[in-house]
């Protein structure tokens, strides 16, 4: 039961990161679009799905709340300020979809909120992961690091890295959903973004070695972890071939594979800890009654259906966008 929910949590995090990742990435690339028509295309490429994508964040939060309440209460309260700022950023980002076209004279403001919100949300998510990798100050199951205990050069570097990664996903998504000048704009950006992401990954790796993080020891102890970097390298190779041949969608899929590889590396190197290295999955889990209650209804029944209709919605909105037809 615990393993099921651990996997479900992992899947939800991964889905959130890849799906809302491309939304946030498009948001970050938004101001660099060549013109207003391109911006409309970019917005239309994500507006039918962003809401559903962001829901995975809520699902992550509620799995933590219901299944791993100790992790939920410890992590969320430890990261109080960054999470509050992230929520504010996500609000501004989400409102832009509805408000941008309805405003008179304030469009610039909502655009700024859209892009700024996307950047800040991505940056904070990356920083939080970085802080988690580096290890939060937790004693006896209680956070003791103070309001800014999560700030560190390593964590901030991870924040920047995730922003770049999201841009990569965003540009990859645009190659699929848009055509002509927006698509070629995305294809122009992609190689640079990919190089930047790889440089950042290397920098993070070197810094982790230099800081002698405990996570690194686990990488050296578990050679099977090398599988994930291999996946990453293969994905990167396919990526560059796809860019050269201008295959749409493939760059997005490769970017997702890269994210999945990075995520897998982290997950395996944390195991069996959930908050490294203070709370294990076993310690964090709620009493069996809670796990079972959610498992037999939501886990067995609703989660698969959710996945299915998420796919259906993506199927309905497949192909190139036509912002004229899709705007309500």
């Amino acid at each position, binding site marked *: 039961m615990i393993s099921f929910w651990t996997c479900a949590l992992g899947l939800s995090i991964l889905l959130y990161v890849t799906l809302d990742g491309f939304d946030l990435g498009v948001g970050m690339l938004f101001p660099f679009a060549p013109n207003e028509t391109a911006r409309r295309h970019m917005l239309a490429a994500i*507006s*039918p*799905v962003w*809401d559903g994508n*962001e*829901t995975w*964040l*809520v*699902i992550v*939060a*509620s*799995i*933590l*709340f*219901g299944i791993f*309440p*100790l992790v*939920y*209460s410890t*992590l*969320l*309260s430890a990261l*109080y300020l960054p*999470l*509050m700022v992230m*929520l*504010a950023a996500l*609000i*501004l980002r*989400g*409102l832009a*979809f*509805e*408000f941008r*076209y*309805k*405003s008179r004279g304030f469009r610039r403001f909502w655009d700024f909120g859209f892009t700024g919100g996307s950047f800040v949300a991505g940056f904070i998510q990356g920083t939080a992961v970085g802080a988690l990798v580096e290890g939060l100050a937790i004693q006896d199951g*209680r956070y003791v690091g103070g*309001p800014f205990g999560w700030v560190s050069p390593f964590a901030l570097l991870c924040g920047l890295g995730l922003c770049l990664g999201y841009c990569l996903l965003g540009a990859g998504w645009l190659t699929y959903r848009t055509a002509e000048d927006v698509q070629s704009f995305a294809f122009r950006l992609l190689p640079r973004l990919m190089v930047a992401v790889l440089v950042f990954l290397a920098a993070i790796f070197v810094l982790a070695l230099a800081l002698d993080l405990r996570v690194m020891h686990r990488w050296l102890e578990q050679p099977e972890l090398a599988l994930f970097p291999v996946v990453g390298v293969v994905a990167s190779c396919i990526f560059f071939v796809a860019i050269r041949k201008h295959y749409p969608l493939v760059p997005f899929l490769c970017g997702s594979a890269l994210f999945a590889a990075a995520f897998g590396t982290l997950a395996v190197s944390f195991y069996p800890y959930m908050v490294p290295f203070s709370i294990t999955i076993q310690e964090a889990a*709620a*009493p069996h*009654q*809670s796990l079972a*209650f*959610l498992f037999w*209804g*939501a886990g067995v029944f*609703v989660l698969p259906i*959710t996945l299915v*209709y998420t796919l259906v919605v993506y199927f*309905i*909105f497949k192909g*190139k*966008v*036509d*912002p*004229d*037809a899709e*705007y*309500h």
Partner: protein
Amino acid sequence: MDVSALLLSRIQFAFTLAFHIIFPAFTIGLAAWLTFLEALWLATRRPVYRRLFDFWLGIFGVAFGIGVVTGIVMAFQFGTNWSELARRAGSIQGPLLGYESFTAFALEAAFFGVLMFGREKVPRWFYLMSCFMVAAGTSLSAFWIMVSNSWMQWPVGFAMGPGGVFIATDWSAIVFSPVAWVRYPHMILAAYLTSAFCVAATGAWHLLRGSFKSDARVMLRMGLGIAAILVPVQLLFGHLVGDYTHDKQPTKFAAIEARWHDEQPASEVLIAWPDQEHERNRYAVSIPYLGSLIGSMSFHSKEVGLTSFPAADRPPVLIPFFAFRIMVGCGLLMLGLAWFGTLFMTSGGLERKRWFLWATFCSFPLGFIATLTGWFTAEVGRQPWTIYGQVRTADAVTPFLTTPQVAVSLLVFCAIYALIFLAGAVYIYRLLQRGPVQLPSFEGAATNPKRPLSMTGHSPGVRAGAPTLEMGE
């Protein structure tokens, strides 16, 4: 424990929740109404239903968007500000809210995209189903929230584990708690009435302006007609909620009644200024015997007063007392409007009575005010407990939270929510003012350049057809 971090956390939670609830209260009813309109349009093919659908869909979109983004804040605040509550009761509230995310939130979020952008891309039956899914999603969401909140009002089906962790022993007792099953209909009806009065008020407004007369007439009549049936049902459920409060939360009930001392038979305080310090009411107007009648359906029953409980277990009286009276006042006003409106409908001349149209137009905030004051009554009346009788609010807050942290986040939320509210109100107002767009020519096309393609190839009576998947290629 820093007292002001606790106080600020309470203010922040109350503020973000009160702001959030405005939008679901509106969209739950609106989603159901849109489904109803779409079904009517498919069944009768009268263009007025389709016009009204398109008109309200735009408004729904704005309100729904705000509801979603402000709702995400709620999913995090249990952990950020109330981590002790989350640690101890997460094993019970977490799965309930988990069901909300899985069954409701995901459902409405996924189909919302189809609703807003997919009419031309899916078959008609699928579009109607999407409407229904969004409506079902919003109602399910409210259901799980009410189950979770009702458990906090009247905790059942649990045992206490090590470290003060609640362990669920009987999930069916929790989910089928009688408290939840009277409070859920009360909330849903509140949402339906809120939407019904917004629809009726919009109709009245356009009639007063002399614009979109036929559509406005339908809105006015449908809104008032639905309300005329639902308000009495709502009053009944309100009474049932009062019954459970009387039996299970006597301190809250006494606070609502501003009853300081045990009385037999009890009188009913209609209006007063409750004085918590001196444990008495100033300027009270009360009716003898009525208190016993309301509390226990008899003229002689003994009703409990606040001084029968230790001072540390008493809720503040002022807020529940006044919030409750405002809520009931709004309910009675709505009843009067809905019934008189229906009377004028049957006797004819509803649309010519300008004073009545003005009254209906001014009634649009009634539902919102009633919903908010109802929640204030329920939540403030539960104090000093977060989980009634089990966990005090002062023990639920994150222990290491500092005052500056909460002050910063509260300020950020105030600023952002003020912005959302202003912008949202202006945009909804403009949409309402613009009125329904006429089919089939779409008068608004000139001012709305994003629209024209939606009509190409489809006259309103023609089936949208199979998904046009290659659009734009």
